[in-house]
C-alpha cells in the first residue's frame, strides 16, 4: 500500500469512526460490520467478475452492501437490540461510506485468491485499528470497558472511578473523537517522516 493512498484510507476510515458513540461495544459492532462488508463485498466483486457483469459492478456492489447491512442489522436486533437502537442511522454508514467503496473498487487486476488474501489482511488491519480506537475512547473517556453480555444485555466493567476522569471524558464525545483523529493523523505524519529520514540515512 503506497503511503499517500494509505493516508487517504486512514482519513476516510477516521471519518467513519467519528460519529459512533464512545463506548467500545458500539465501536466493536461497527468494526464487525465493516469486516463482514469488506470480506463479503470482495466475494461479491469476484462473483460479478465471473458472471461478466462488470458494467453493473458499482450498482450491484452497492446493492449487495446494503442488503448485507440490513441482514446484519436484523441479526443484531435479535441478539443485542440496545446496540442497534443506540447506533440508529450510524449502522448504515459503513455500507455507503467512501472508505468501503474505494477499498473494494481498488486492485481489480489481482487474481481471485490474491485479491481475497490482500483484502482480508487489510480488513483485519483496519479492524484492529478501529477496535483499539474505540477501546481507548471507552477506557479514557468513561473509565469502563463495555462488551456483549448474557441475556441480550451490554456488560460494563468499571476500570476506574468516573470522578477521576475529569477532562478526559471529552474524548468520548464527537469533538473528542475528531481531536483524537487529528492526533492520530499527526502521529502518522511524524512517524512517516522519521522512517523516511532513517531509510534515506541507510541508503547513504
Amino acid at each position, binding site marked *: 500500500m503506497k503511503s499517500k493512498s494509505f493516508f487517504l484510507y486512514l482519513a476516510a476510515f477516521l471519518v467513519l469512526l467519528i460519529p459512533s458513540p464512545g463506548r467500545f461495544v458500539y465501536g466493536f459492532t461497527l468494526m464487525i460490520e465493516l469486516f463482514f462488508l469488506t470480506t463479503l463485498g470482495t466475494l461479491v466483486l469476484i462473483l460479478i467478475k465471473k458472471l461478466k457483469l462488470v458494467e453493473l459492478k458499482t450498482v450491484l456492489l452497492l*446493492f449487495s452492501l446494503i442488503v448485507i447491512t440490513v441482514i446484519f442489522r436484523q441479526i443484531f436486533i435479535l441478539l443485542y437490540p440496545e446496540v442497534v437502537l443506540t447506533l440508529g442511522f450510524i449502522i448504515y454508514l459503513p455500507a455507503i461510506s467512501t472508505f468501503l467503496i474505494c477499498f473494494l473498487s481498488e486492485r481489480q487486476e489481482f487474481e481471485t485468491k490474491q485479491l481475497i488474501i490482500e483484502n482480508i489482511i487489510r480488513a483485519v488491519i483496519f479492524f484492529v485499528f478501529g477496535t483499539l480506537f474505540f477501546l481507548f475512547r471507552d477506557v479514557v473517556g468513561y473509565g469502563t470497558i463495555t462488551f456483549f453480555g448474557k441475556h441480550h444485555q451490554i456488560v460494563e466493567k468499571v476500570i476506574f472511578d468516573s470522578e477521576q476522569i475529569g477532562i478526559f471524558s471529552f474524548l468520548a464525545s464527537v469533538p473528542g473523537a475528531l481531536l483524537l483523529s487529528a492526533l492520530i493523523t499527526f502521529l502518522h505524519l511524524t512517524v512517516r517522516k522519521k522512517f523516511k529520514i532513517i531509510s534515506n540515512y541507510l541508503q547513504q
Partner: protein
Amino acid sequence: MFVDTVLYYVFFSSSLLLYGIGINRVTQIGFSSKTEVTFYVKLILSIFCSSVLSWLVTYYILLPLGIIELFPIFTFLIYVCINAFFEALIRITTNKSCSEFVLSFSIVLISILESSSLLNSLLICLCCLCAIIVIVPLIIAFKSKVCPEIKVINEKYYALFFIFLAVIIIIFSVADVSWINFLEC
C-alpha cells in the same frame, strides 16, 4: 416543530458534523476545480425526488406489509433509478458526467429513517443540505486563513481540518446545551 427540526439538523445535530455526511466532499473545497452548476441541480433534484418516492413506498407499501426494515433496499433502488434518469438527461443535454452517490444517498436515507411525515422528510433533506451550505464559508475561511500554504490535501491539512470541525461542533453544542438550558431554568 418546524424551527426545532431546522435548528436540530442544521446546527445542533448537523448531518455533516455529527454523522460525517459529505465530509469527504467538503474537505476538497478550495482544492479541486470548480464544479458545474448542473452537478448541484442534479444533486438537489435527485435527493428530493428520491426522498418523496421512497417515503411514499415506505409508508404505503412496506409499512402495511410489515417489512419496513427493508426500506434501505427499496430506497436504494428508487435512488438508483432517479439518479440514472438525471444522469442520462445531463449527459444527453450537456455531454458531461455528474456522478455522485455517498452524499445524496446518505441524505435520502437519513430523511426516511428519521422523519415522521412526507413534509418532515423533505424538511430533513433541506436541512441536511443547509448544514453543508452553512459550513462551506467557514471552510473557505479556514483554508485561506489557517493553512493558505497547503496546495494539496495532505495529512497536515486533514489533522487541522478535524480540529477545525471539533471547534465548530463545540461552538454549536455550547449554544444547545449550556445557554438554552440556562435560559430555560
